[in-house]
């Protein structure tokens, strides 16, 4: 078996908050194979974005990082400045949630798109422009030449996010980190932008780490799903099997908390309680305060990820959850 393109190995991150260090990631292990799309799903504050930023070493200064992140076998935390720049410039590209904040407002769209080619690839401006125009047409922007002369404030959010996608693809990376790429857009634009990203990624055979709070969306565009809760991955499973075979009570809760547009108008079932931040987690299972199945054991014994039914689950009662799903399903 070949080693995966991206391998996150027991990543632990602590950030300085008001002088003290707070844990934002407890122990995250995840891998993405070449050409594979992996969804990282969880509520806000669960550490999804931190995980992605750690991959590109974009965490705030003075963050404490332990564990390892390997890209194509090379350890990212140990990279020198030149290697790190090459990783960012050539291998991994990031699509951010809010294109209006993440694209410099004072430069033209053309400057933004060609900048990395001109500075990193040493391509002439005219050659860079030609490539960028072709790419803009691929992301569905027809009057590309005119758009290049415009500034970000003259474009709608949906167009800007397409520009961001084009900017990520322009360097021909091997891995894309998409951090909630459609969350800031309105619903109809969301679908278009997601479809474009999905199609271009498949065409190019790129690997993707797709970060979202939307479990169904992740299941639709990804091969595999990692579910995060309070700074830890609680379940890691093939996207197609998630509905039938999810083994963590939190995953089951997330699946129940989403409206089913085609099926019965069954009432939405919210996951009770409020999501915990990673630093609030004491001993034991982070989810126990909101879990119906919680037993005294969950309070002092942290469940580790273990192989169950073709995926991995961090719950002492995963078998029970799987069984209950099997029993419940025929009645649905």
């Amino acid at each position, binding site marked *: 078996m070949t080693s995966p393109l991206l391998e996150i190995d027991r990543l632990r991150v602590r950030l300085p908050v008001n002088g003290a260090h707070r844990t934002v990631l407890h122990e995250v292990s995840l891998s993405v194979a070449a050409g594979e799309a992996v969804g990282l799903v969880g509520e806000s504050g669960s550490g999804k974005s931190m995980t992605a930023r750690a991959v590109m070493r974009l965490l705030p200064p003075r963050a404490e990082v332990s564990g390892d992140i390997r890209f194509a076998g090379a350890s990212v935390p140990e990279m020198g400045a030149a290697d790190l720049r090459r990783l960012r410039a050539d291998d991994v590209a990031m699509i951010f949630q809010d294109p209006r904040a993440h694209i410099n407002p004072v430069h033209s769209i053309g400057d933004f798109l060609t*900048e*990395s080619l001109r*500075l*990193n690839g040493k391509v002439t401006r005219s050659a860079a422009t030609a490539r960028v125009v072709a790419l803009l047409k691929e992301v569905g922007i027809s009057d590309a030449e005119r758009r290049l002369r415009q500034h970000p404030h003259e474009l709608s959010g949906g167009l800007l996010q397409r520009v961001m996608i084009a900017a990520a693809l322009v360097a021909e990376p091997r891995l894309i980190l998409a951090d909630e790429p459609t969350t800031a857009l309105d619903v109809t634009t969301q679908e278009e932008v997601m479809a474009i990203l999905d199609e271009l990624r498949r065409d190019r055979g790129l690997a993707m780490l797709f970060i979202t709070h939307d479990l169904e969306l992740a299941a639709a565009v990804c091969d595999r799903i990692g579910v995060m809760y309070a700074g830890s991955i609680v379940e890691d499973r093939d996207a197609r099997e998630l509905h039938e075979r999810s083994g963590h009570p939190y995953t089951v809760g997330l699946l129940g908390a989403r409206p089913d547009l085609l099926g019965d108008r069954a009432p939405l079932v919210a996951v009770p309680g409020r999501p915990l931040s990673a630093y609030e987690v004491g001993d034991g299972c982070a989810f126990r305060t909101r879990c119906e199945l919680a037993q005294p054991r969950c309070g002092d014994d942290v469940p580790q990820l273990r192989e169950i039914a073709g995926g991995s689950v961090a719950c002492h009662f995963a078998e029970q959850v799987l069984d209950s799903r099997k029993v419940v399903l025929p009645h649905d």
Partner: protein
Amino acid sequence: MLTPAFVGRRLLGLVVTLLVASVVIFGSLYLSPGDPAALLAGGSTPNPEALAQIRADFHLNDPFWSQYWHWLSGLLQGDLGRSVVFRSDVVDLLASRVVTSLMLVVYAATLIIVIGVGLGSLAALRGGRISTAVTVVTTIGMAAPTFVAAIVFVWLFSTQLGWFPIYGSGSGLVDRLWHLTLPAVALSLTWIAYVSRITRSAVSAELESEHVVTATSRGLPRRSIVRHHVMRNAAAPVLTISGLTVAGLFAGTAVAEQAFGVNGIGALLIDCAAKQDLAVVQVIAMFMVAAFVVINTVVDVISAALDPRLVASAVDA
């Protein structure tokens, strides 16, 4: 994009502001106490015939708007009026003094922008001890008003060390600059501190901004990120504050001129206001307002050229 419409609107605004200012300046002195004719006659008990003659000569019996129009059209044609106190044309009084004051303001402005922006950028980009050192120095600088700095400078550099002249404006470019050094430093000290603080916070804000994270994530060289994404974006707010500061120097120059005996328009304004030489006070006040408004307009236009969003928001408003 910087459109002709945007520049046109700013120019129109400039003209309207100057017109309003001219009415206010002329009107407030028109309403000020004292009989100008008695003042012009100069004697302790002028005879009524002489006063009537003076009133006719100086159009003092005309209605306000007529007098105002007479004054304004004269200004526009280069006729600045006559000083009663100095018994000479205002043009001749101002000519050399305006040059001296302009030199002082430009000198101080250069110090403010070069040192203020330099220190602020250094503090933001380097951080750590350099940032702390700049904070300490600028805190002291901000607490030193011009007249206090002037006294200390004269005592230290002129009386004790003898490096700079105590008094006067000098002649010839180098000699003039030498004479203007202490006044310029005293005038600029507080503002260097102010501009460096604004610069530091503007540059820090850009360093932490999300679009700089994007640029970093694209593997761009640090030098390009600092130049094209940090300094370039901080330029508009820094320029606006620097411009306001420099425009304000025209008013602040009076204190420095008076303290160092520099023969400029600020010192002249104080002198003429005390002696109720209305014609001179009006022209100098008008000149200071004009300098302030023109600099502000220039800064507005340059800021808009630096940040295209400013044009958009001005058009929307």
